[in-house]
């Protein structure tokens, strides 16, 4: 049987949060309740493993709203597949992450 690498609960929670629509670091921190020292290194690891992908928001959009541009994170195809596999392992996790109420 092929060995399927598994994600930790924290990594799965972060993947779940990003998939639900919390697409930048601070929002992931707020919804998961995890500290910055956990969330950001975990997101770097997920990005290194090609489970998420980051991209900077267009500067024009941020300038129009007079705020700094954000770095957004998005699940890759491999990340979605991994999340689906991990949800079977952590079935209660989806209920912990509420769907974002308004526009982010």
């Amino acid at each position: 049987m092929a060995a399927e690498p598994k994600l930790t609960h924290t990594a799965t929670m972060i993947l779940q949060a990003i998939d639900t629509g919390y697409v930048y670091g601070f929002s992931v921190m707020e919804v998961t309740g995890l500290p910055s020292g956990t969330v950001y290194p975990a997101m770097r690891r997920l990005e290194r493993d090609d489970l998420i992908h980051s991209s900077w928001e267009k500067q024009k959009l941020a300038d129009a709203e007079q705020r700094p541009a954000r770095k957004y994170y998005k699940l890759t195809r491999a990340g979605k597949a991994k999340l689906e596999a991990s949800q079977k392992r952590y079935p209660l996790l989806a209920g912990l992450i509420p769907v974002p109420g308004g526009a982010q």
Partner: protein
Amino acid sequence: MTVHLAILRAAALLVPRAERADWLAEWKSELWYVLGARPREATGFCLGAFPDAFWLRRNSARLDARRMFHLESPLQCVIVLAVLAGASFLSTRHMMKEIRILPHLLVILMSLLVLPVVTSLDFGEYPANNRPLSWPGRRWMFFATKVALLLTTVFCGAITLVTIGAPILAGYVFAFRWALMDQRRRCPVCLHLLTSPIRIGEPSHTFLAWYGTELICAKGHGVLQVPEIATSCYRTQRWNSLF
């Protein structure tokens, strides 16, 4: 805001230079939102930048100090260390008559006692069926040369900069540690630095397999398997010859 930015800038020093600007831009941007939503938590948020910076420093593929200083080949390594030792010696030449050797010998002895605390003394497993070296003692000669040159650098540097004490002890410990770590990352046949580190396995599969890092000799002499933790089957790093 200034204190928070200072914390982020201090953490940014740990981030590899190539990734620093992007990293700092992300943290500064996030800080702006944290200050807007939860100003009281901003300091705690900024302190979280340090684990992130450490992680990047540890895992950056682009950062390798040995390659930065051209230490890949044994000859280049000895030349660089000899230049350092030579420069260090020349800077203290006029003070040589006043130097007392005994305190330094005692500090070197103490550093050898401290060394097992900061690094493993194990060189790894090199099975006997490997292709024999062209000169069997070459590997140990190289190690001894590195240690001698590093000790000279620290010894002369200590005379120039500070007196005997904890900084010198740390200097000797660092010298021994560096020599050991460098030796463990070299091919036992050609003594070149091993390249292309890749992660193998998963921590959850340690029962029947190992997990850690595998490095290969660019000249094809073999692969080095370095376990992340010692297990009964992989107590220490193991060299597998490709001949």
